[in-house]
């Protein structure tokens, strides 16, 4: 991680400022608390199916989301809770979906891997590796064509850089100069295999940037300020017609790949070292450094906890989805009729 750009600015009123910093912190805490709750609920057998947590990766989601304007679009993967929450989707809707309740974001029809809230700009979570990169290009093409100023932001992992769709999307976006940002969350593992074992270059995304005429960007993905700054730069460039960016964020997931994974493949001490660089710990210190009082910090945390508790209770009490939604919304007419 020698090549990580670390923020040098420690002035009190720097380019980021207090309001944004508090928002960055709160967003990270929301993700942390909601994800931890998702895990607890899974242990209680209340979350069925699979789920892929971003514990430890909160700074990436927070940094990119807080830098967005309303109307900007997020395209996520199966590891999409964090990005969905970061856009302001209520915790209850997310937990409800994970629990397969009728109050879930998609009433249980999508599940953990497909969180979508178009009203919040969350244009879907995609569970086929790489598929959403071209899709994000399409949304960006629409903005370009219609002269709209939103950007499309597409999140994916290190492992995703080895699939064909990654390559096609990057070239396509670069040639068409699309306002799309490709964010690689390099957490150093595909499912259970270290990314270095299966990738020809040390930086799976950044070392490919030049193949698309793009700038090589690697940042500290555990520092929300670093993420926020790079996001702002990329969004500004995209909105100004400067085309796509590819940003590799170095980070680490504290839990296993999915709920089924105890992550035994990690070398000893690796998790501990990364926990020292826990993004929320880092950011708490950052806030202190900028003179934010402990009490204010604690208030944010307890506020989030209360929200998550409340959401949990509401989800537990929520009904399961009625069976009459089983075959609705296959087609635009609301139904599924394939014949007359």
């Amino acid at each position: 991680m020698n090549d990580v750009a670390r923020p040098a600015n420690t002035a009190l009123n720097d380019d980021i400022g207090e309001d944004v910093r508090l928002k960055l912190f709160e967003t990270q805490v929301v993700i942390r608390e909601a994800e931890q709750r998702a895990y607890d609920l899974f242990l209680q057998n209340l979350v069925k199916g699979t789920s892929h947590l971003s514990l430890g990766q909160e700074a990436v989601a927070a940094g990119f989301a807080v830098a967005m304007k309303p109307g900007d679009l997020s395209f996520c993967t199966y590891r999409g809770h964090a990005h969905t929450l970061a856009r302001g989707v209520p915790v209850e809707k997310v937990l409800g979906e994970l629990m397969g309740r009728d109050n879930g974001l998609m009433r249980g029809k999508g599940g953990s891997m497909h969180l979508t809230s178009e009203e919040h700009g969350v244009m879907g979570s995609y569970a086929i590796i790489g598929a959403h990169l071209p899709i994000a290009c399409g949304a960006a093409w629409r903005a370009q064509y219609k002269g709209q100023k939103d950007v499309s932001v597409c999140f994916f992992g290190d492992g995703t850089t080895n699939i064909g769709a990654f390559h096609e999307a990057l070239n396509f976006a670069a040639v068409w100069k699309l306002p799309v940002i490709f964010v690689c969350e390099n957490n150093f593992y595909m499912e259970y295999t270290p990314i270095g074992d299966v990738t020809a270059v040390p930086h799976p995304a950044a070392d490919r940037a030049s193949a698309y005429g793009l700038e090589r960007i690697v940042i500290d993905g555990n520092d929300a300020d670093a993420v926020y700054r790079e996001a702002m730069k990329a969004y500004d460039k995209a909105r100004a017609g400067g085309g796509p960016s590819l940003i590799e964020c170095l980070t680490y997931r504290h839990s296993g790949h999915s709920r089924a994974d105890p992550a035994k493949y990690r070398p000893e001490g690796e998790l501990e070292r990364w926990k020292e660089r826990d993004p929320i710990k880092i950011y708490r210190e950052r806030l202190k450094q900028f003179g934010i009082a402990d009490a204010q910090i604690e208030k944010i945390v307890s506020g989030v906890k209360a929200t998550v508790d409340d959401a949990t209770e509401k989800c537990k009490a929520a009904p399961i989805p009625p069976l009459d939604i089983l075959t609705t919304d296959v087609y635009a007419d609301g139904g599924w009729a394939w014949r007359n």
Partner: protein
Amino acid sequence: MAELTYRDAVIRGIAQEMERDPDVVFLGEDIAKAGGVFKATVGLYEQFGPLRVRDTPISEQAILGAAMGAAMTGLKPIAEIMFSDFIAVCFDYIANEFPKSRYMTNGQTKCPLVVRTGNGAGSRFGAQHSQSVENWCMMIPGLKVVAPSSPADVIGLLAASVRDPDPVIFLEHKSLYPTKGEVPDGEIVDKLGTAKILRPGKDATILALALMVPRALAAAEKLAAEHGIDCEVIDVRSLVPLDTQTILGSVAKTHRAFSVEENPRLCGWGAEIMSIIADEAFYDLDGPLVRITTPHCPLPSADVLEDAILPNVDRIVERVSKTLNS
């Protein structure tokens, strides 16, 4: 009324829709400046300009993915996949993305796009450029699948596909591009999900699609002339939605059914329709349901071989007459 080739009908259909709605955009390989490898998009670039008619890299996943993202956010893209065989390299969008997003998101996501593609055999292109892949699409829930057989249907069904709020796979038959037909003047808009009885008849129903339609019609004439068998020929046109009313109605009248399918046999659209008839119209039937298909085999390249492998008029006549006379 004017006589138009199927190829020119594609151009006119796309132009009609692009003129009507500025949100209709068109992308694909070599479709813009060059006018398409089948010359079925000539002039569109000149008419609608480089922002609406765009050449892409050889990146079928990017083409379909971009079409989807654009469709989700407000455009009505038409994407060309040059040969339908290439659907295999971007099948994730066909199978897993377009057709599932609306359902998975409980209705939040829309995907109003059209994938146009050159389908079918007859050009001596060999096994990887000649397939009939309508069933690759028909079997996927959430898609609509259309395959016109005449220039007028091309325009009308293409217009209906572009206006449809769901993803539509629009299969143009490569061997039909040079064929001609009468086309009405002015705007033409047809209706998806409607089969057409092209020849009424009372002795048996023959179901056909695309290139097999003219062959089925010719076979019906021969069956009438040479065997005294009066066949009703139905152009299925739309595999999804499927016009089962017209089909079952016909079988109720004729009591016999045949399919003529260009696709290799297994799991073809004819299998689906026959299984519907065998369930819902069993007691209407006077005899076996018979499918006439290309053998379940890859396609050869040499002209004599390719001509011999597809269902043709004689094979249809023979199968139908033998079946009805046995």
